[in-house]
């Protein structure tokens, strides 16, 4: 009794849903193309204003560097941890899984209030610099995404066999980790990294309350005074998320390698 056609009610739903999800995107595009003086279509003035705004470049650069830093710290922290838990202490896996839920229980708005209070009076190279406090907070935010990606990656490989093979060939722990384990979980690590990139590039709450000037706070600043530029920036921000998510899909779909090809 397999149906090959789509029910009419489903078509109606699809049309309504696509309208709801596409109209705001189209409206943002049209809005960003309006001329600054007349408010009529079409001019690229908003875009050229953004490109010549040096604040745009400094904030987007800061956000990008922050996401790179967050990704680097997360990978260095979590790859060995998840590896060790899978290899030696599988009983701790539920504990890690539970800890990964904590960022959902403590949302950014609660987290930032607590963090700012706790670290008040810490050295200024940490407290006053985005690369200190902000990056640390983002590592916490990215933890669940990184953890679930890595966990899935480690579950799909045979950690024990790989480790034993590597050690019986005389490899040290570091060699095992960097030259055997890492290449095998590359896809999972990349997936976690792209998710982290999308999160950090769009994070507003913590940056705003901790008074740092990142890309999302810049959009908000423009939003308050210059609507057409803000539309252009919003669109750009959507494109970044799109790119990160498409990269994620592309990496995840990577053609399945034949068995044995994994270690070359």
């Amino acid at each position, binding site marked *: 009794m397999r149906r090959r056609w789509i029910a009419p009610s489903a078509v109606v739903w699809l049309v309504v849903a696509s309208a709801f999800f596409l109209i705001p995107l*189209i409206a943002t595009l049209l809005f960003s193309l309006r001329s600054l003086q007349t408010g009529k279509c079409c001019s690229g003035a908003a875009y050229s204003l953004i490109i010549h705004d040096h604040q745009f470049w400094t904030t987007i650069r800061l956000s990008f560097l922050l996401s790179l830093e967050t990704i680097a710290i997360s990978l260095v922290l979590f790859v060995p941890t998840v590896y060790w838990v899978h290899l030696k202490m599988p009983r701790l896996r539920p504990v890690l899984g539970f800890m990964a839920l904590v960022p959902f229980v403590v949302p950014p708005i609660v987290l930032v209030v607590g963090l700012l209070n706790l670290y008040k009076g810490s050295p200024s190279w940490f407290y006053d610099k985005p690369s200190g406090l902000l990056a640390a907070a983002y590592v916490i935010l990215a933890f669940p995404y990184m953890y679930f990606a890595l966990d899935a990656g480690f579950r799909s490989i045979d950690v024990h066999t790989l480790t034993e093979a590597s050690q019986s060939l005389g490899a040290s722990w570091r060699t095992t980790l960097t030259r055997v384990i890492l290449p095998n979980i590359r896809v999972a690590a990349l997936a976690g990294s792209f998710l982290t990139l999308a999160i950090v590039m*769009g*994070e507003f709450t913590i940056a705003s309350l901790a008074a740092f000037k990142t890309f999302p706070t810049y*959009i908000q600043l423009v939003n308050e005074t210059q609507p057409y530029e803000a539309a252009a920036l919003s669109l750009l921000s959507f494109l970044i998320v799109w790119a990160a998510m498409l990269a994620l899909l592309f990496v995840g779909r990577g053609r399945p390698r034949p068995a044995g090809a994994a270690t070359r």
Partner: protein
Amino acid sequence: MIREGTPRFLRTTLTTFSGVAANFAGIPLAFAFIATLGTIGIVTTFMRDHLGFDPYAHGFTLFGQTGVELTYLYFQIPLMILVIAPAIDGLRSEWREAAANLGANSWQFWRYVGIPVLLPSILGAFILLFGNSFSAYATAYGLAANGIAIVPITIGFYYSGNVVSDPHLAQALAFGMFVVLAVMMLLYVPLQRRSARWMR
């Protein structure tokens, strides 16, 4: 819609798009809605000029409760699809056939088989979406700045407010939010375990 009959390409598009749209929250989303339904938004002006209907003259405003709810739907619906799709996939066609063999009609199938099996997943998704809306700050802030009195905005207002600043009140509110969300998670974990029973 996620069930069997749907063509594969449509399904992939749907889940891909949901994955992307669920991440669209924040300032840009708020702005996309301002450009659409704000006072000079594209849809608002279109309705005003061509349909002769001004939503703002009829009590609608994007910057109040309805507007914020409408905007939250933009990332909540895709999230719901993402969360509930695996559960609906878990509904096996054998069950439907077995029910049909025993003489059940479609309504009876859903009433006695479909809904009971899906219930833990639906409740779990409900909790997840509640938490997601409850703790959203950026989207509401982008829409209405300090104009809407939801808890996260109030925390931000008291914590970094230029006019009224009362960090201790903000901390108390933040702790209150934490308690609510912690209770939600305590309900979520057993539901998750129970819904996983039907997943293989």
